[in-house]
């Protein structure tokens, strides 16, 4: 405990004069005339694909080549025909090492950066989102927001819990600045916007 009181004491002893927290509600953050169009463009810019689902979700999934080829499919969205992993039977995340395709629901999506808000509601299957070779994210059209400020105004954190912004597929440019899709996580990411 002594390190704790030492550190807090040292920080208090030298604390600068109190400065006010700026009022973020006065910030006029960017908004877009066509939020759906901007979101779709952002998803493409971060290396993903964006599909607007007119018919059934399954029809839309059937247009994704990686879904059609997948053998082991995890879905956290109900009603996906090819889902064949019983998540209740997963006791250890290592059992998900060979997942080919994973379908995740998103609660929010942000037009300015193509990011989808994915909340994990417990259980050992969190790893599926990262171990899978390919990803699809399903988000309702009415969950689109313009920018991150609007997004965080609507977010309630699960605590304890895990949530993330996912913006496109896994990527790296660590070798000579060459962009390579599929570093450690998903090699492709398709966002399906449902109405």
């Amino acid at each position: 405990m002594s390190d704790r009181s030492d550190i807090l004491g040292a920080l208090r002893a030298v604390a600068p004069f109190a400065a006010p927290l700026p009022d973020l509600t006065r910030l006029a953050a960017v908004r877009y005339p066509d939020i759906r169009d901007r979101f779709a463009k952002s998803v493409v810019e971060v290396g993903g694909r964006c599909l607007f689902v007119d018919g059934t979700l399954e029809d839309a999934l059937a247009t994704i080549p990686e879904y059609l080829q997948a053998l082991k499919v995890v879905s956290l969205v109900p009603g996906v025909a090819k889902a064949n992993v019983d998540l209740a039977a997963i006791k250890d995340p290592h059992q998900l090492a060979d997942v080919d395709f994973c379908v995740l629901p998103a609660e929010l999506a942000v037009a300015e950066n193509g990011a989808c808000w994915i909340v994990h509601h417990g259980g050992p299957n969190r790893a599926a989102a990262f171990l899978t070779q390919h990803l699809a994210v399903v988000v309702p059209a009415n969950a689109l927001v313009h920018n991150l400020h609007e997004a965080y105004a609507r977010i309630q954190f699960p605590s304890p819990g895990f949530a993330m912004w996912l913006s496109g597929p896994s990527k790296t440019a660590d070798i000579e600045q060459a962009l390579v899709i599929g570093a450690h996580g998903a090699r492709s990411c398709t966002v399906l916007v449902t109405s």
Partner: protein
Amino acid sequence: MTDHAARAASFVADDARLHWHDKAVWFVRNKRDIARSFVPEWEELRSLGSQIKTHTLSRLADYLEQFERNAIAAGAKVHWARDATEHNRIVHGILRERGVTRLVKSKSMLTEECHLNEHLEENGVEVVDTDLGERIVQFRREPPSHIVMPAIHLKKEEIGELFHEKLGTPVGLSDPKQLTEAARGHLREKFLGAQAGLTGVNFAIASTGGVVVCTNEGNADLGTSLPPIHIACMGVEKVVPSPHELAVFLRLLARSATGQPITTYTSHFHGPRPGAEMHIVIVDHGRSGILGREEYRNALKCIRCAACLNTCPVYRRSGGHSYGVAVAGPIGSVLAPHVDAKKHAGLPFASSLCGSCSDVCPVRIDLHHQLFTWRGELSARGLVPLRKRVISRLSAWVLARTWAYRIFGKLVRMFAPHLPNPWTRTRDLPPMPRESFRAQWRKRVGPK
């Protein structure tokens, strides 16, 4: 010659490589400019980011206590370390008590600063850096040369040779896509075999007790969703008041770093997953000292985006290793002398004081002013070489006297090209004008 210049000597000796590095890094700065152009409120966002940090630093202890309370409520265990030694001891203690010998790590500049890897390896823990760039430099047994792109100093052919030796890729393979694929296979095995995962912390949210980790590769997420232990290491300055302030920094960070609108994965951890453990190590390691120094405390606002490295003409042309510290570039040069002023006295001189670093900083740190202030302080403390001090004194004396300036100007025009000059070892002296500016002006506009 300063230590920085001496260390940069081998880098600048290869002219073609120097220009290649310069271009590669400038390319990233350019991507930042493009990303910024899509955010009309960018300058206001930078000001808000800076003001939020000013506020947070004025109440840092309160926010840390609030963060700790909420993190514990979410199920995390919180540890405090006053310095690098204590930090390393805590991390090793957590691993030892649980018999962990295989650790996967995602990027953490703090652990680089604390030399955690060396400490754990000496104690028999296999540490695998899982960020691709960090794995590359770890294979080479060298530190990262850039805080966001650790292997920016290497060419793909060199990485190909390294992977041939370490991972058995075919001789001559240098395609980034295929090399990345080889690393993906190698590191998957490490993720699946790891007993614990360690991450840095980009932001710690006081109001919720959560920590936020940003990566593009997904390595922090694989490293924390497979093994049952997650250790997150953070400096005291990482705390932000609430998710609303977090939004400002997330909008600034990736755009400033790589020109992306946000990183691929921005993970919010509130406590461990069910059946797992989460440890948060909060580290001071000199930060309270910096907070106590008004002229330097703004450096604690840094969100480690590396925009100041990418824009710095000295960094781009001398490489990250020339700084001899974990964090290179302008921000590294203002932080390092706090740790050891004598050892790093040369770093504040590794700058042209052009001010570009301050112009791109997403939280408006007055970097070039701090570099300048350090020069004065180091000089006053007698830590600057005598030759530099004499030259500075002489210059000040000359610049303060018009008559001396005129005579000196004439002497320089006559003799400078013929004198031995260390400045011209890696540069060409421009041809000297025949007449002074004053004389040329008089010719053009006539006597006053």
